[in-house]
């Protein structure tokens, strides 16, 4: 069976969500968590956008596109606040890791 473009990219989005989730759990460094958040976020958007392209002959569905643009801006807003918080925390605590997760370094 030949995968349709929509299905292929939707599966790719699902894979990216999984990869991001792994990073979000495993990596304790807060800037890496911000990075993982962005990977999951774009995975979710790719997932939504791909599913809106299941009828290419009718054209891509513009409603998910609008939702995704809104979502990208919202994700950027959250990222900016998260980065500012991480920097402030690192200046206070010396490291960009939450105290309870500060185990031995590799």
């Amino acid at each position, binding site marked *: 069976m030949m995968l349709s473009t929509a299905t292929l990219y939707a599966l*790719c989005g699902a894979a990216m969500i999984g990869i991001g989730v792994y990073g979000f759990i495993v990596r304790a460094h807060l800037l890496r968590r911000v990075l993982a958040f962005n990977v999951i976020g774009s995975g979710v958007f790719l997932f939504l956008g791909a599913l809106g392209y299941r*009828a290419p002959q009718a054209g891509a569905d513009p409603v998910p596109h609008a939702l995704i643009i809104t979502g990208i801006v919202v994700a950027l807003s959250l990222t900016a606040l998260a980065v500012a918080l991480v920097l402030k925390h690192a200046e206070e605590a010396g490291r960009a890791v939450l105290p309870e997760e500060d185990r031995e370094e590799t």
Partner: protein
Amino acid sequence: MTAAFVFDAMLCLLLVGTAVSAVAGRDLFASIAFFVTYGILIGLAWLRLGAVDVALAEAAIGAGLTGVLLIGAWSMLQRRCGDGGNDPAMPVLPKLAAAAVSVTVTGMLALAVLALPVGAPGLVPLVTENLSESGVGNPVTAVLLNFRAYDTLMESIVLLIALVAVWALTPKELWGGVPGLRQHARPDGVLATFGRLLPPLGLVVAVYVVWAGSEMPGGAFQAGTILAAVWLLVVMAGIAEEPRMSSRLLRLALVVGPAVFLGVGLVGAAFGSFLGLPVDFAKALILAIEFALTFSIAVTLALLVAGTPREGT
């Protein structure tokens, strides 16, 4: 058709590869470089999915601004705290558990995708049917600024409040100062020259993107990001300084876009429906909202990237 499929498969492979490297790599800076690449590749994926507007937003925000934000944060961490980005080690068992969670999430989503009906057109017919009433020719702009304008209004407030939230982290003694680091460069150096050459070009592109947005892909958020990048470039080249947080003019600049948007919405409420745009004036109103929004978004984004003031005056 097959060539396109091979292209898609290769792109997906690269996407997964860069995502894994960005998340699992050891060197933090390399991870950020992978993430910037990842943003570029997603932009390509959006083009393959017929989403040119999203590709523009991704190219500007995902690959551009987020990358700059992360590079800046990496630099600050290293300089101020000597934090090179090393992670505390996680024991193997929790790592396996995390991998299991990740595989489960992906697996369940994949199964759901395969179970969804194929050929579903979504809301394409409804948007097409109502496009002539919306005042613009680009369906995505019609959704963003007319059909679902309420979402977009809230989104513009989200961006503004993100800046207020970042400012809320300002140390007491630095309040009202100049956001970010004090930038400087050799006056006749490459950086300063670059900072003089690029802005006019960027300005033209930004105006084009917002103007084109009503009929072609483009719009306020993409154009605002380009303007913000241009302004940040001017600042980084040491040609101009960020305005002080306490500036009244700056605060007016921040709110003018959302205020015009909300104002149009409330006037609409007085004449029938909140955020309702009369067909005859829809195009003019949408353009007015978009230009005001572009300006405010540009100022907000530039200050978001700069962050809180770092040094006293």
